[in-house]
């Protein structure tokens, strides 16, 4: 079982990155296939904050995340990154943003090393030797060494997610979005991922938005937690407020009432 105590920051390199960004979501609405998925969501995430979004399956968490990285356009409302609309072309060039997908979304035809270094290689930001060095450094940060030559299909689920985190770190992001980072992982791997998310906040002051339905992870890493149900926010507050809430609806949505 994951506990808050397990998510103490990992030691790591000093920060050379730009500070995290502030995110504002204003009255976000989205319908897909005739179904209203997001029904007027509004919230703010402060720079450097870890903001966890929780909710049952199908509540619109992943769709929200895809809007926050610019993979989807809203039907109504807007998302601002440090006051600039995410849809403006300057935002992508001005702010560095990364997303860790639920499946890891590693390119299966590339090795781990190529996956982690793809951003630097495709944008020609470093020489091959420098890329190699950066890749080794980022893999070491997430606790992976000597796996650079392997292909994603040869890795466990936890390792794939850590490689995906390493790939996002190469960007030196100011905002990282995590989609269900601990799903399909054993408690130990979940703990490691939680520690890594927390350590990044302390090390590079990145803003993190984590979608999860794991209350243990949320309590362990979050500065603030929001709970979404049927496309609407039904709770938003600090971790201690979340722990103290007596709202039966939140308990019903997030905790199993199964008693063997």
């Amino acid at each position, binding site marked *: 079982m994951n506990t808050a105590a397990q998510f103490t920051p990992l030691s790591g390199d000093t920060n050379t990155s730009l500070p995290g960004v502030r995110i504002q979501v204003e009255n976000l609405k989205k319908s897909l296939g005739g179904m209203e998925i997001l029904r007027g969501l509004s919230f703010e995430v402060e720079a450097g904050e870890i903001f966890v979004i929780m909710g049952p399956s199908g509540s619109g968490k992943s769709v929200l995340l895809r809007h926050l990285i610019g993979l989807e356009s809203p039907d109504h409302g807007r998302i601002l990154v440090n006051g600039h609309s995410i849809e403006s072309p300057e935002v992508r060039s001005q702010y560095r943003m*990364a997303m860790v*997908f*639920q499946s890891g979304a590693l390119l299966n035809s590339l090795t781990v090393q190529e996956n982690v270094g*793809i951003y630097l290689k495709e944008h020609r930001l470093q020489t091959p030797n420098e890329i190699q060095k950066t890749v080794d450094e980022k893999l070491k940060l997430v606790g992976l060494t000597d796996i650079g030559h392997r292909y994603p299909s040869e890795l466990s689920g936890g390792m794939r997610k850590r490689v995906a985190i390493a790939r996002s770190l190469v960007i030196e992001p100011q905002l990282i979005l995590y989609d269900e980072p601990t799903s399909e992982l054993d408690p130990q791997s979940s703990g490691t991922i939680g520690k890594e998310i927390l350590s990044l906040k302390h090390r590079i002051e990145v803003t993190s938005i984590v979608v999860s339905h794991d209350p243990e992870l949320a309590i362990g890493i979050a500065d603030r937690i929001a709970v979404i149900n049927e496309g609407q926010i039904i709770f938003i507050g600090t971790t201690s407020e979340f722990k103290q809430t007596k709202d039966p609806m939140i308990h019903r949505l997030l905790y199993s009432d199964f008693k063997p």
Partner: protein
Amino acid sequence: MFRSLGEILILFQQVVRALPLAVRHSGKILTQFYEIGNASLLMACVLSMFIGGVLALQTGPVLANQGLSGSIGGLVGLSMCKELAPVMMAMLTAGRIGSAMAAEIGSMKVYQEIDALITMNINPVHYLVLPRMIAITLALPMLVVFAILAGWFGGALVSVGSSEIGISFAVYFNNLRELVDSGDVLNGIIKGAVFGIIIGTVSCHQGLKTTGGPRGIGHAVTRAVVNSLALILILDYFLTRILLFWD
């Protein structure tokens, strides 16, 4: 259908505009080029040899009865250059390479690999489509050249070996040289390049618009092959008219 055609044209336009970036992707282009050649060359040669052979077998006895057995070299030569080699190679490539392109890009779409590229500011058209399009547009005309040569050779073997035709290699190839010139071979090469563009664009387009899981990938592959073949056969007519006019 018109929406798909429009999307295919837009994708093609994006690839054309990205052509100056081809040098940056030369490694990926060479990899794709090798895969296309490696997958298709042997089969292209074997198939073409049999196509040339069948052509000689079907037409040879009729020509021989009319006392025209000496013309069979030119008939096989022209048929292979202008029609059979480019169309048959396009069909083979659509089945082998187009389907593989649609499946690979489709699975990358379904498993969010393309989303991951977008979040890293890597344009999927530049990274995935451009190298494949260039490779197939260069590789298909080369396959056509090999197919033409193999088809001529297959026709010659049957013409010499068949008792109903019974001509020598010299007669066959002399007639072929008389009737077929470099413009006819170029005709086939141009058709091959156009068909390569069609297969590449249609297959990558189907891959990029794949939705759902494995079932969606299967549908994308089927649509890629069927749409490629339909477009090839329809455009072949218009291309033939243009090339005849040009001749």
